């Protein structure tokens, strides 16, 4: 796993040529934090730095990383999506509901959709939640924090309503009904790497391409950096805004499916407070909550920092209460370093006459959200 993580760092010279040296440098901070975490816990516990444990931890990271990739898109747009944790719960429940068979009163029978249908339906539900968020934010101009806080409750409520608060167990399916295979993601491995991790890698690759190679990515960075300028440049800023929430919802759907698959069951309470960990990962990864700055590489590193830290604390037997204290401290520390970095960078950029855009506004906000995380 570490060699995989080193890969982006080895590409440094190429990035430096493109003038991105600075960005790498402070993403390096999340990277250094990760290395420190691995070294410290390896020293404290012989069970930490083993292939099995690294895979287990990475599997844990995968869910948060997938959420964080979606969250990054929203944060690049200067928004926030608090509903993803609830969406994780809802999509799992929807999948469970479908797998257990749907009553069709007209034919007086029970339909058992195939697994691929279940997956598509669940992801569609995730996307739908995102779309509602996006429309609330872009069309009705509801502040993202408020809009997604509302859907956080609504979606969680829906998930509880569907199951009546209960858990759907035993989702492995029945061969006779042709709906087996749902636990594939959770239990299978490919080249001895769990499928969940591969899904994360695939989504990260897709996200990187989307952000760096497509017009959409450029639109996103521009409209997050300065919506008015982007609009006057002919960028469909509203569509971009809706899209990022849909992407975030779909990512939450993927995460929900992975969890349900791993557990072979679906619980409506799944995923509560996951949104905060996802936001933390994005922020540790160097993204600006003001929008326009951040990337997938950093976000992944952020997810790994949080995951490897909390699993490490569990392994060495730190009490749960102290775990929370450490996690919170790491988040604040990471963001503190980043905001220091932005400030000095901005000062450099303002060498001549250009006044910093909203300079005084940029700094308090990251801390405000971290406080709630």
């Amino acid at each position, binding site marked *: 796993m570490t060699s995989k993580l080193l890969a982006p760092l080895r590409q440094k010279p190429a990035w430096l040529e493109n003038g991105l040296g600075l960005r790498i440098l402070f993403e390096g901070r999340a990277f250094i934090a990760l290395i420190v975490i691995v070294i410290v816990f390896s020293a404290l516990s012989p069970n930490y730095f083993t292939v099995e444990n690294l895979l287990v931890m990475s599997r844990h990271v995968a869910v948060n990383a997938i959420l964080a990739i979606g969250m990054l898109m929203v944060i690049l747009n200067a928004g926030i999506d608090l509903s993803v944790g609830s969406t994780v719960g809802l999509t799992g429940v929807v999948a469970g509901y479908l797998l257990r068979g749907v009553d069709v009163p007209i034919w007086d029978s029970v339909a058992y959709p195939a697994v691929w249908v279940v997956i598509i339906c669940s992801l569609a539900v995730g996307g739908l939640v995102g779309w509602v968020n996006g429309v609330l934010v872009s069309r009705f101009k509801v502040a993202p924090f408020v809009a997604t806080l509302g859907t956080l409750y609504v979606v969680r409520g829906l998930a509880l309503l569907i199951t009546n608060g209960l858990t759907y167990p035993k989702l492995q399916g029945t061969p006779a009904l042709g709906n087996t295979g749902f636990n594939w993601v959770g239990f299978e491995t490919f080249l001895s790497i769990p499928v969940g991790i591969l899904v994360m890698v695939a989504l990260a690759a897709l996200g990187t391409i989307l952000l760096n190679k*497509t017009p959409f*990515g*450029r639109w996103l960075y521009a409209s997050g950096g300065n919506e008015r*300028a982007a609009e006057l440049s002919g960028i469909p800023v509203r569509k971009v805004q809706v899209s990022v929430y849909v992407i975030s919802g779909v990512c939450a759907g993927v995460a929900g499916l992975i969890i349900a698959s791993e557990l072979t069951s679906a619980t409506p309470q799944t995923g509560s407070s996951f949104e905060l960990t996802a936001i933390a990962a994005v922020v540790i990864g160097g993204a600006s909550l003001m*929008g326009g700055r951040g990337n997938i590489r950093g976000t992944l590193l952020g997810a790994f920092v949080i995951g490897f830290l909390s699993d490490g604390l569990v392994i060495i037997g730190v009490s749960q209460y102290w775990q929370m204290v450490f996690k919170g401290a790491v988040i604040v520390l990471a963001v503190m370093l980043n905001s220091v970095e932005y400030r000095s960078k*901005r000062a450099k950029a303002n060498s001549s*006459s*250009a006044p910093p855009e909203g300079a005084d506004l940029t700094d308090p906000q990251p801390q405000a959200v971290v406080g709630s995380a």
Partner: protein
Amino acid sequence: MSGAADVVLRANDITKRYGGTQALKGVNFEIARGTVTSLLGENGAGKSTLMKILAGVEKPTSGTLELDGELVTFDSTVDAADKGISIIHQEMSLCPNLSVRDNIFMGREIVTAAGTVDYSAERKIVRQLMERLEESIHPDTLVADLRLGQQQIVEIARALSVNARILIMDEPTSALSASEVEVLFKVIKDLRASGVSIVYISHHLEEALKVSEYVVVLRDGDMVATATAAHVDIAWIISTMVGRDFDLGQPPSPEGYGATALTVDEVRVADPSNPERLLVDGVSLEVRAGEIVCIYGLMGAGRTELLETLAGRMPLVSGKVLVGDTDLRDLSISERIELGLGLVPEDRQRDGLVQSMSVGHNISLASLGSFVKGLFLSRSGEDEIVRDGIKDVQVKTASAAAAIGSLSGGNQQKVIIAKMLLTNPKVLLLDEPSRGIDVGAKSEVFGLLSSLATKGLAVLYSTSEVAECLSIANRIIVMRRGKIVAEFGSEGATKDEIMAASGEQTDTSRTNGKNK
């Protein structure tokens, strides 16, 4: 500064380096007690940097500051303020959600014995300040409810309330009316008489000449000249600032016009916050290919609203806009850009640039479609059009990957123009293209417009400086309160006629001698 003995502040060999760029290259600068010193120079010459160092916002890379003959360092603006240096910033730094009184005493509230803010004492001082500035602004008015010029007055009042020994004014008159400028000059005279030293920075050169005793000219981070104001004239200042002769350019010859490129017919635009009120009231005009048309008007005449409506930013109440023969009704901004209509907005920072992106990415932002291969952006395709864009409008930048904030105002403006030019426009709208850029960049921008027009582009720009319509526009349209009140050809108009039509008082000397 011919040996004026009583120097309050002296800067010795100040240098300032930001990364690779040297903003100041060893500047020596003196401020004499009870005088007004004008600091002049193009954008990027180092004026703002020097002022930031004097006001404690930035620290010099090397060099020293002497205050009353003693070496000092300023750790912060508060530190500088404590030592008697106060600054009126070019960009408004008021909180619109707070009252005038709260803004003036922000961070220095008067506190009663009980530890609460002494509002009545504060109010009293604000009233005195407003009296001095001959303004009737009530202390409890929200800053958001004031027009821009009044906000600038509040900014000035705040600087005055500090009782500074040295007052730095960075473009204090940019939003003031002629009569308000007169009052400010009176206040400056009073201050000077009471021993306050003033450093005055302005793009209005004749204003600067009128109000100051000494003139200091910066160019490319060097101090190139100091003189007594009485001994120099505008022409000398401009040639010293720019280092070459200055000409805004000539309009292209009228024979070259093509077909009508832009038709505006009885356009009405309402105030978004008050739909009853029309900001643009029945404006009709035409611009032909190859023609440069200037809209002159005061602040609030409806120029910006008209141009933003044409670009698709604001909705039309009634009327018609055509590009060529195509009606623009209900078309989005991007569809309008595709049809060949682009806007270079008035406020670069707010509407023009994405600060978090590089120079190159800003330039290519409006024409991403031209270098998409399949689903992806082609890096080589982008590099090519960015290179062309930088070359065509002569943006001075270290590289396409440089941060947009590292460019001077004029070059940032050129980046936005390059961005719109890459969309192959037929009609280019520019809202105050010279705002906040220096004389040299101004002439480059207008020269560029002129050469674009000769290639068949229709150009419609707005301005509030008469000199800028007279020199290069083929036609001048004067707007006042949302209506077109006069129209002149480039030959027939005089400055006084244009200003009279716009409703501006010409009896002040504010704009005298501005055109060349």
